[in-house]
């Protein structure tokens, strides 16, 4: 459904330093700087897949999504989405995709959301009957029956995001690019959006690529993740496998009955790595395969009130991934120079 090979994007930036003198200099002679935002990346995504697209700010996520959606012209490389070359911006292509940007809106601020829906109906050439059916479905899935008749400026952020999603999906695109769809939403609303995306994927077999700062979005939705850093893909594969590889431990949260003294802590360190100790709460990382045995021993040797076992948060996994990958890549660059 999505095919990307050797895709790059180089931005030409007009370079100017601060200050009046520098401005005058820049006026006389323009200096351009070239920034390679995406450096020859390749991947393929099959129909119906949900892929989490991760990376820190400025890593190249949004640039890549914009190229895939036909907004930005690629500098080099092959690109195919739903059988089209995005940069040609054919109507049939635009009708089969959507891009939802959490920080940009398509709904008109001064009108009701339904007004924007109706324009989309005409622009995407959706026959009346089909439009009614789809709208009813989206209204039900997102619970926006009442809200959508309000002026958009009067909506809460969460309501607006739900209406944005509805507007972006009325034409039932086969490929969805979601750029930070949950940004700024409260936990509850994040959950609603997440659930909706999952539901949409299952119902229509849509292919979805999503970026998010909230790891929970990614862990809940995507089996596969692609991690981009400084314009390069540093990981592409199974999320569970990544966690296993980069975080072969589980995290234990212990609630002890009495504060632990120095000696007890040292004792505890034999079981695993103490991450944090605060009052009666201790966090401990221990190897995955030894969890069962260790827990039994801990309960025997310490006065423990409560115990919780979880995976290491994805943030920490990503941190480890960047640490492992980036220095290696730097060497690679200097070698190739």
């Amino acid at each position: 459904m999505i095919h990307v090979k050797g895709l790059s994007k180089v931005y030409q930036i007009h370079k100017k330093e601060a200050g009046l003198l520098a401005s005058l200099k820049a006026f006389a002679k323009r200096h351009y700087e070239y920034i390679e935002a995406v450096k020859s990346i390749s991947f393929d995504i099959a129909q119906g897949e949900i892929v989490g697209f991760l990376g820190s700010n400025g890593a190249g996520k949004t640039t890549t999504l914009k190229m895939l959606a036909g907004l930005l012209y690629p500098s080099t490389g092959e690109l195919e989405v739903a059988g089209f070359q995005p940069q040609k911006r054919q109507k049939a292509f635009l009708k089969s995709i959507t891009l939802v940007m959490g920080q940009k809106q398509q709904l008109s601020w001064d009108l009701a959301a339904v007004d924007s829906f109706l324009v989309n109906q005409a622009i995407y050439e959706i026959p009346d009957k089909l439009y009614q059916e789809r709208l009813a479905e989206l209204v039900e899935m997102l619970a926006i029956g009442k809200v959508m008749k309000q002026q958009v400026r009067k909506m809460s952020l969460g309501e607006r995001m739900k209406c944005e999603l509805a507007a972006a999906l009325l034409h039932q695109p086969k490929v969805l690019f979601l750029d930070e769809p949950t940004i700024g939403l409260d936990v509850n609303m994040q959950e609603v959006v997440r659930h909706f995306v999952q539901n949409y994927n299952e119902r229509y077999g849509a292919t979805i690529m999503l970026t998010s700062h909230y790891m929970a979005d990614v862990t809940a939705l995507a089996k596969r993740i692609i991690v981009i850093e400084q314009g390069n893909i540093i990981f592409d594969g199974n999320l569970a496998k990544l966690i296993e590889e980069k975080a072969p431990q589980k995290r234990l949260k212990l609630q002890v009955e009495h504060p632990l003294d120095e000696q007890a802590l040292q004792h505890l360190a034999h079981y695993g790595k103490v991450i944090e100790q605060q009052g009666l709460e201790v966090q401990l990382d221990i190897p995955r395969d030894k969890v069962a045995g260790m827990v039994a021993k801990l309960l025997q040797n310490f006065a423990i009130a409560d115990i919780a076992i979880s995976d290491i948060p994805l943030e920490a996994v990503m941190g480890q991934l960047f640490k492992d990958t980036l220095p290696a890549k730097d060497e690679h660059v200097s070698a190739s120079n």
Partner: protein
Amino acid sequence: MLAPQTKKPSAFARLYQHLYWSLRKSLALGRFSFSLTLNYQAEIIIWMIAGLFPLVMMFVWLSLASEGPVAGYSHQDFINYYLILFFVRQMTVVWLVWEMDPEIRLGRLSPLLLKPLSPYWWHFANHVTDKVIRLPILLVFLTLAFGLARQFPPFEVLNLFIFLLSLSLAFLMRFNLGFCIGSLAFWLHQATSFEHLFFSLYTVFSGVLAPIDLFPPLLRQLISFSPFPYMINFPVKVFLGELSFWQIVQGLLIQLFWVGFFALLKTWLWRKGLRHYGAVGA
């Protein structure tokens, strides 16, 4: 060979579909943009007041003509000329660059670009709606103004139709040119400076500052090769019935030429510009 073709809709069915959806889109955009524009009633009135400059020029020329006609233009001629000119200018106002420039530079164009309809048509709908709202206000204003002056311009039904045609062409000339200037924002930080340049030339050479008849012959000859007189002077003259049949035909053809020229130029600039999009911010 035959089988797959029978599945395809006939050329007629496709044409029908195309026309049907074009109409639906126009109606939907019109309705949408009308409700949107109604939010800005007060602004429209203020914009109209900001466009009173031709009336100022009218009073300047009236005071000059108080002693007798200036180059054949009497007191009454100036009133006719400037009141009709005011109408033409108001009905051909284009503010594209002021919208396109921030849209392109700040990346607000992206949501529009995602849709299978060129942003050109969004702006077009907004401009046409604006004219629909201005029209009744202008008609009331002109009736009052002519009433106060105790004179009415010559009026003929046939002339009115030709006038409406030349007015529409004048609007299209300005709109397509405006889209060209707006597209420069793909490359420039300040496409609006080109709009200022255009506007000064337009004010002088379209007939706003002075009727073109009052210009020296050589200059008149020169600017007749530019698009400016066809944006204002020509439609006004058509309304006032001052042109011969052949002058009208020639003028309309020249207007058509400029509409087509700017249409091609804007298509070319837009296509080139999209390749640049995102290079300056966004």
